[in-house]
């Protein structure tokens, strides 16, 4: 018998693995790096409804575009912003106008939560002192308290997070979903471990991945991955570590477009709704993409 390849087109992957009403969708990437934008644009194209959007500790256009162009009921996040480029326009508007329910948390809530979700742990208790900020006051459903059985003290807890689907970018994968992060992992590998279903987008499918890099570097096991989508430049306008850097000019175009519903509609038409994902790179311009070079890390 033959081993089954998991390689498919972006449209097939999203159609098959993201339900029309997705209970919880985790999107990988951190700040303007490794955002799985090809998958996210396709989620908007296919008009999927997202009950709960879950981000890494620092989301960027991955969450903001979904809030602007998609259908998101609530968002669990510790940060949505554009780092030195400023605030996240659709996130800010949606929260201020209450068109999205905000489940605001801190970075450890997500990191501990993914850990607990991946490991079947009922919760993770916080280190002492992390209850001294105000987050638990607004989120008594998320943040709770229990007794430390070793000291008798009250400790705050983070709840397990088990996304129904995680959309993640890895630099390279083999056809069976074994994959590699060539730069930072952020919390993306944790999301893979915690999610019920994982859709990977990669810059390149490398059939002999483990042989090429050594199996010890391949730390995403294929059995956790349902689909592998080859999407070169699929993180644009964010970076793909070691492949290309973020497109600051395009991010500024996006931020400007978000200033009014009309210009946001035009942006969405031009880069998302009006084309198949496979045409995106051409729309951006191949030469422009090739110029997004990194100085390169010592790999």
């Amino acid at each position: 018998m033959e081993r089954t390849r998991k390689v498919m087109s972006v449209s097939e992957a999203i159609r098959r693995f993201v339900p029309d009403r997705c209970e919880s969708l985790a999107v990988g990437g951190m700040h303007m790096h490794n955002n799985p934008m090809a998958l996210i644009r396709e989620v908007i194209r296919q008009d999927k409804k997202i009950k709960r959007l879950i981000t890494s500790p620092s989301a960027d256009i991955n969450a903001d575009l979904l809030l602007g162009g998609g259908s998101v009921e609530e968002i669990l996040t510790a940060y949505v912003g554009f780092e030195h480029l400023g605030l996240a326009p659709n996130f800010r508007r949606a929260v201020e106008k209450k068109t999205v329910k905000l489940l605001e948390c801190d970075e450890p809530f997500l990191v501990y939560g993914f850990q607990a979700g991946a490991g079947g742990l009922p919760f993770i208790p916080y280190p002492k002192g992390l209850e001294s900020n105000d987050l638990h006051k607004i989120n008594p459903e998320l943040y709770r308290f229990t007794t430390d059985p070793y000291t008798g003290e009250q400790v705050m807890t983070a709840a397990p997070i088990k996304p129904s689907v995680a959309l993640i970018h890895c630099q390279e994968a083999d056809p069976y979903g074994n994959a590699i992060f060539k730069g930072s992992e952020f919390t993306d590998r944790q999301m893979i471990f915690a999610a019920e279903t994982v859709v990977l987008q990669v810059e390149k499918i490398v059939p002999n991945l483990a042989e090429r890099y050594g199996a010890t570097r391949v730390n995403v096991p294929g059995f956790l991955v349902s689909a592998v989508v080859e999407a070169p430049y699929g993180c644009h306008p964010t970076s793909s570590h070691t492949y290309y850097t973020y497109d600051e000019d395009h991010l500024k175009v996006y931020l400007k477009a978000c200033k009014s519903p009309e210009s946001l509609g035009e942006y969405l038409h031009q880069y998302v709704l009006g084309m198949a994902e496979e045409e995106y790179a051409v729309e951006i311009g191949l030469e422009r993409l090739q110029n997004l070079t990194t100085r390169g890390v010592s790999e």
Partner: protein
Amino acid sequence: MSGKAYSTAELMACVMARHLRDREVAVMGAVSMIPMAACRLAQETHAPNLSYIAGGSGAVNPHLEPLVFSSCDAENLRADAVLALPDVILLEGHGKRFDVFFGGGLQIDKYGNCNLVCIGDWHHPVLKGPGTVGLPFLPRAGRAVIYTTSHNARTFVEKVDFNSGPGFLDGPESWARQGLPGQGPSLVVTPLCALDFDEISKVMRLKSLHPGVRREQVAENTGFELVIPVEVPVTPEPTPSELAILRRVDPTGVARNLV
């Protein structure tokens, strides 16, 4: 800062660098171009055994040259080592791993509490901030170093609307009651001055005025009553060798041109 041989951001980097000690470990999050420059500067001057971690990238001792905008950038991975982010978070919780944690906020109050969550009531915000990320770990760090590029009364407030990055909480009693592993906020660096905290009252105190800045100017731009000692020294200017290092680390002015 026209007419000067250095920018205000460079002066701020020098103030931070001089605060760091040899063998310490520092950590910082997003939008940390000045702290990163400061760490490299400290390593190249008095603290060769300083270690620092560049935010979400997990890079330990990024070599910079050149400094880039994003703390999660792959450029930071030219480094001594790289940790996965969950490992960095683990270390942040430990309580004795990080001597210095760089923080900041849309609002900073007199006890050094920071707010990155919202202006106004959380349920009806006037302005929704980006979110607090790792600032809740501040009370687990040895010392918090707070910085901002905007020293005005909107940023420096009597009490933060939302405490997302705890400083001395509601003051000395509430801080003492917690019995936390760290020493709390120890330094605040702004375009106008450096500040520390009164040992007893835990209220922010003017420590040094940047060259050309008057104490009244600081008081006017601060929304609460600072502790102002009788004698307030002038922040020592960057030395030529400090400036040379900063400009090697940051040749394109990523940090330099911020303020």
